[in-house]
């Protein structure tokens, strides 16, 4: 059985705090057109490239064991919320992510970066203070906007 790093109740407390911080950034959420839904330790974010609002993507931050572990990031089928590489956007970092055995987006702040493609890279340690949920989502949004100019 996998060892738990954080007491689930404590984790939920910190998670809720971080979600509240994200949801308080109403101008930012409106600016990017994000629709945010929280279910347990999962945050679902409906997002689209700024110049192509017709291209909808559903992102999920899975934040179990927050704040000890970085949130895991995946794009999902917007209808079923199933994982699959076919639901990932175009663009270099996204194509690179799905070329790996399991999708690993190499952006600091994401679990797949800290525990996957850059595990052991001490120059970019995971920090819940440095990599807020909003910061992670904005970095993904910036790459989404660049992928669909």
């Amino acid at each position, binding site marked *: 059985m996998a060892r738990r790093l954080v007491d689930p109740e404590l984790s939920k407390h910190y998670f809720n705090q971080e979600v509240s911080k994200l949801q308080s950034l109403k101008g*930012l959420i409106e600016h990017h057109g994000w629709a945010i839904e929280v279910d347990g330790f999962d945050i679902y974010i409906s997002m689209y490239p700024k110049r192509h609002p017709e291209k909808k993507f559903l992102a999920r931050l899975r934040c179990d064991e927050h704040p000890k572990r970085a949130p895991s990031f995946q794009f999902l089928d917007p209808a079923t919320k199933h994982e699959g590489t076919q639901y990932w956007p175009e663009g270099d970092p996204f194509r690179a992510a799905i070329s790996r055995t399991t999708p690993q987006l190499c952006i600091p702040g994401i679990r797949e970066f800290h525990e996957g493609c850059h595990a052991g890279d001490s120059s970019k340690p995971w920090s819940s203070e440095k990599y807020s949920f909003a910061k992670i989502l*904005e970095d993904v949004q*910036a790459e989404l906007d660049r992928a669909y100019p």
Partner: protein
Amino acid sequence: MSTKEPPKVNLTIESSSGVIKESYSLNEKIHAVKVSAMAKLHLDPSTAGNYGLFIKGKNEPLPEDKTLGDLGISDGMTLVISPLKAEVI
């Protein structure tokens, strides 16, 4: 002789690290507003080139060599500081 202060606007500036409400002169250039707001929002101003200052909901960052007045920024508007590129490694 009296010197007349340039008109000011009260702006809300939002980023992933929080929200500030500040008053700026309409003569202030966008770059200066962005860097000053970044410092207040605890975003490293030395990384200012990675960020743009946007009118909320607009697709293009404001041109940095123009002033708030040049661009018709008015009192009460919300601006957003947002990254132009992620740190992809």
